[in-house]
């Protein structure tokens, strides 16, 4: 484990905070680390900043992430990694589509030729919208409190997808699945960053698997071609104990 000291923190939204730190290790956009808080537990986290300093954007949902939300400069945590297959970045016009805190994983690939579609359940949960000029920003909220009223896959009907060389997507699996179906029907070139329950983070425990692929190893980033016929993506997953449950999203 590598001991990390928090240098700086920034609140992004209610219950969302970015922790900045120094770590002399190359991390590719889309890769993740396992974050350990001794005595509390270990969780996978993608990096929202991969240069120097590095940054992790945390949304509180369990005891480890809640403890991270409460961290201040000088506080410590431990990490191992980085792990996984990151984004294959290409020059040319990009579209990034982030659902909820998923936009954090996509930040490192945004450049001056990137459009962003940022979605959330409600406007209070939108993050990183200030990172893009208005001419390159699209917003969607489930409840219509800001931007487009509806889901990202619905908003895509309003865009000319053909102008984008590649599209990069990260968010909750139901959103990813519907966006994948829409983009596949448009024959778009795209990559998706998936998230599933993780335990080992290194490709041996089978917790995060999706149709034979391990999200921690062959992923988290998958090409759309790997997902369109995957027997589990958007269909079923396994719980922490390993029991198969169906997502019922058809």
């Amino acid at each position, binding site marked *: 484990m590598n001991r990390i000291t928090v240098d700086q923190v920034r609140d992004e939204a209610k219950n969302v905070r970015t922790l900045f730190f120094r770590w002399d290790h190359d991390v590719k956009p889309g890769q993740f680390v396992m974050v350990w808080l001794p005595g509390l537990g270990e969780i996978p986290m993608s990096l929202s900043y991969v240069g120097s300093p590095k940054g992790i954007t945390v949304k509180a949902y369990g005891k480890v992430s809640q403890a991270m939300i409460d961290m201040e400069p000088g506080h410590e945590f*431990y990490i191992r990694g980085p792990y996984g297959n990151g984004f294959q970045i290409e020059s040319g016009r990009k579209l990034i589509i982030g659902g909820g805190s998923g936009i954090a994983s996509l930040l490192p690939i945004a450049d001056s030729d990137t459009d962003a579609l940022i979605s959330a359940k409600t406007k209070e949960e939108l993050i990183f919208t200030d990172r893009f000029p208005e001419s390159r920003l699209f917003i969607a909220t489930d409840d219509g409190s800001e931007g487009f009223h509806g889901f990202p896959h619905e908003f895509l009907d309003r865009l000319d997808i053909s102008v984008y060389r590649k599209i990069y997507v990260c968010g909750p699996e139901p959103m990813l699945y519907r966006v994948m179906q829409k983009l596949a029907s448009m024959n778009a070139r795209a990559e998706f960053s998936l998230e599933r329950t993780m335990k080992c983070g290194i490709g041996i425990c089978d917790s995060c698997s999706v149709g034979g692929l391990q999200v921690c190893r062959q992923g988290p980033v998958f090409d759309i071609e790997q997902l369109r016929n995957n027997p589990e993506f958007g269909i079923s997953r396994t719980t922490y*104990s390993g029991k198969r449950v169906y997502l019922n999203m058809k």
Partner: protein
Amino acid sequence: MADLSTSVAGIRLENPLMLASGILDENGYTMLDVMNNGAAAVVTKSIGMEERNGYSAPVIVEYGDSLINAVGLSNPGIDNFAEEIRIAKRSGKPVIGSVFASDAESFVNLGRKMQEYGCDAVELNLSCPHVKGFGLEVGSDPDLVEDIVNEMKSKISVPVFAKLSPNVSDIIEIAKAAEKADAYVLINTVKAMKIDIRARMPVLTNAYGGLSGPAIKPVGVRYVYEVKKETGKDIIGVGGITTYEDAVEYIMAGASAVQIGTALYTVGKSVFRNIISQMNTFMDDEKFHSIQDMVGVAIR
């Protein structure tokens, strides 16, 4: 061209390489993928009577090229596992159901279910905790081992493999207690711990874990050799196999097949085809025509 096929307790394997229990074998699609990557068979995650979350993370420590794990027998419970077997069986290759319990009756119930689900054999995980507690394993109690194996053999018709723990003082005594089993699987993990000196505490949530990987290969080879020499029974070797040389060493010690686990971490799923290809070359060079020609040749 050497013939890499082999058999254990009457189960035909197209090559000697199996996937070990506890590694990439919780999800049927993953087992299918591992077999599509060249494994001749898979052993499932060890399944108990009840659904069990096991330990919260951290459950793994990377220890050089080896691993220390404490997953805590996380499993969906036998009643929720039928579908995974069904999916894995699409490969057309043998699927061996691993089971754990603390008494003979529960082992038998689990074995029956695995057989009913279509498993080609049942592997008894005897490294699970003894009801007496004190850190004891079922597999350290020869009377209990004998009872479990005998009950299994009298109640189910598919082959029964006894996976023996290395954490015992006399492996031969335990092997003899399990002599009614159709084959032995040697070895399970070695008891271990990793402390982070900056955090000043054990890394694993459970503190204790099981060491697997190349670090334990010499222990596994010795136990295979010792038990084969003493009993002559079919053995499947497991513990630290990452190269064809490792696999051949286990086979020369007396194993008829080997299981691969931790190498999925260091090498990935390609480890199966890598070993098969290189073992083929080795056998041709050394003039071994079949796996059987190599089994136990190192025994003096």
